[in-house]
């Protein structure tokens, strides 16, 4: 047990562009950590450096207390699943899964046995004699996952493995990745730009921006206590309401709220409010907003309202509580959180 993968002070520049800036991260044995961020934030660069497919300009990587910064990719024993289809087109599914074992000079019977075992784990036993192009995208990624796991990797690296798939397959496969990862207790680094994906299956999520790790925390912490404005606006939807900070309080929608983060100076600030923290009261006598649209999403509905200063807010309410809201209705918008998050930006 103990620390499995430790990344310290990793940097990488491409000419004058800084792709990765003093990036540090420790992943415990059996943990699934996601790196989440917009494209170009350095998450894939970080993953490729861990895999040994790219070199860091500076920094160090340690795996189970052994330095691997200079170990070539083919000796790192890390399984990787890529964004684009990466199966070897000239090999059958079984041969693809057994490739890593073949490179390790395992005897043929053992290779076939192990490949069969993994294909069973990903539910593709009957397809083992087929070629990659005869499988659908989702099946190909399952095989790629089986291939990466066949070498019993110290670390499993997932580089947006679901982004080329359609929504339904994507959701099934992400649950399956999580199931296998927990079952095999494989330390996993998962790179994605899809926050729902990251939040759904990760033990911890690291949010990245401009080559830096902005915050790394459990999905709940990230959502409820974002450390930076970037994290706050990147994770989930967020209403931004300009207001004044005075004596640790802000006035939002006509009511005073104390703030969660006290480190801001008095003066102009922006209050950050989640849509689900805004409730719209239809039968109130006091009105401060007018309904603009209502979109039915199933159990909940998203309602947009215009407030006094002309700006638009989003509210997320149970559909059953918002049935009577129609565009043009006057309502009272109330913030249900006692404490709100602010930023001086």
């Amino acid at each position, binding site marked *: 047990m103990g620390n499995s993968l430790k990344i310290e002070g990793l940097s990488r520049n491409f000419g004058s562009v800084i792709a990765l800036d003093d990036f540090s991260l420790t992943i415990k044995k059996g943990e699934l950590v996601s790196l989440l961020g917009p494209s170009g934030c350095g998450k894939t660069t970080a993953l*490729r450096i861990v*895999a*040994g*497919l790219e070199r860091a300009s500076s920094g160090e990587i340690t795996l189970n207390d052994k330095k691997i910064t200079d170990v*070539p*990719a*083919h*000796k*790192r*024993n*890390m*399984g*990787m699943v*890529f964004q*684009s*289809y*990466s*199966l*070897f*087109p*000239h*090999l059958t599914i079984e041969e693809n899964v057994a*490739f*890593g074992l073949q*490179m*390790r000079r395992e005897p043929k019977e053992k290779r076939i046995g192990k490949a069969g075992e993994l294909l069973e784990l990903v539910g593709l036993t009957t397809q083992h004699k087929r*070629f990659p*192009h*005869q*499988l*659908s995208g*989702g*099946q190909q990624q399952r095989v*790629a996952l089986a*291939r*990466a796991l066949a*070498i019993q990797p110290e670390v499993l*690296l997932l580089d947006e493995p679901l982004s080329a798939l359609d929504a339904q*397959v994507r959701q099934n496969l992400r649950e399956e990745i999580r199931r296998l990862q927990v079952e095999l207790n494989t330390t996993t680094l998962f790179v994605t730009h899809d926050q729902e994906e990251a939040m759904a299956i990760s033990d911890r999520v690291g949010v990245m921006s401009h080559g830096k790790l902005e915050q790394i925390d459990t999905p709940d912490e990230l959502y409820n206590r974002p450390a930076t404005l970037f994290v706050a606006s990147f994770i989930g939807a967020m209403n931004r309401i300009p207001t004044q900070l005075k004596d640790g309080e802000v006035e939002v929608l006509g009511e005073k709220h104390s703030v969660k983060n006290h480190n801001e100076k008095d003066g102009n600030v922006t209050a950050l409010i989640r849509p689900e923290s805004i409730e719209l009261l239809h039968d109130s006598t006091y009105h401060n907003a007018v309904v603009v649209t209502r979109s039915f999403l199933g159990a909940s509905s998203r309602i947009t309202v215009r407030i006094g200063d002309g700006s638009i807010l989003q509210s997320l309410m149970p559909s059953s509580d918002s049935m009577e809201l129609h565009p043009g209705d006057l309502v009272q918008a109330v913030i249900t959180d006692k404490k709100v998050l602010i930023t001086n930006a």
Partner: protein
Amino acid sequence: MMNFRKNLDANIALAIAAIFLFLPLIAATEFSLRDGGTEKHSLISYRWILDQSGFSENLGITMRVMALAVILTLVLMVPTVTWLHLGGEKYKRLIDVLTMLPLIIPVVALATGAQLALPGFVHGTVYELSFLYVVVSMPYTYRALDIGMSARPLATLVAAARNLGASWINVMLRVIVPSILPSIFAALFMTITLSLGEFTLAQLLHWNTFPTWITNISQQNILGATALAVGSLFFAWVLLYIFTFLDRQPTQSAVNEE
């Protein structure tokens, strides 16, 4: 109705192309089978070829020149084009242009100019032709390989193989070469057909090869010359067929949705 008309046009075009292509071939084959000035058909002209002195000797020379050209093409072109696809992209445009040069430079200039650049040990041997054939076939071999590699996500395949523990040698031999095998065969076929039929360079540099021998003996016997031409053509077809047969990879996409 539109569709039918479209098909009709296409079929007429196809028929004209087929006549254009096959009629001379059929005529040449029939002609090569004539028994002297008579109405009868026989293999006499083909037997005549085998009886000519120098047949096996010159064919042997051409075969050896061809074999070296094939090896050189494999060793030089496959790694080069692979490198262009795996990190040398910025040179690709330059190489694209460079590989066209053999089509533009007059053969005489190529023969004398390229000779100067050849390694010393091939000077004065017939194998200098192999090096020149590699150059002359380059516009075709380069493109065949380039297309084959462009059709594969080569960088990802290499990354996957490295990640699974493959050394660079294994990456090359077990991943890159097999996954672009059809285009390697296509490239080699270009080199082979060119080596089998190239006349100008051999003649300019005063080497006796199979094509120069054919030219010489065809002046003695027109039926024999036609038989030779038809024979070479069928030989090339057989080669092409063998290559297609060797490429057993299924190419038909049969996606099976989940």
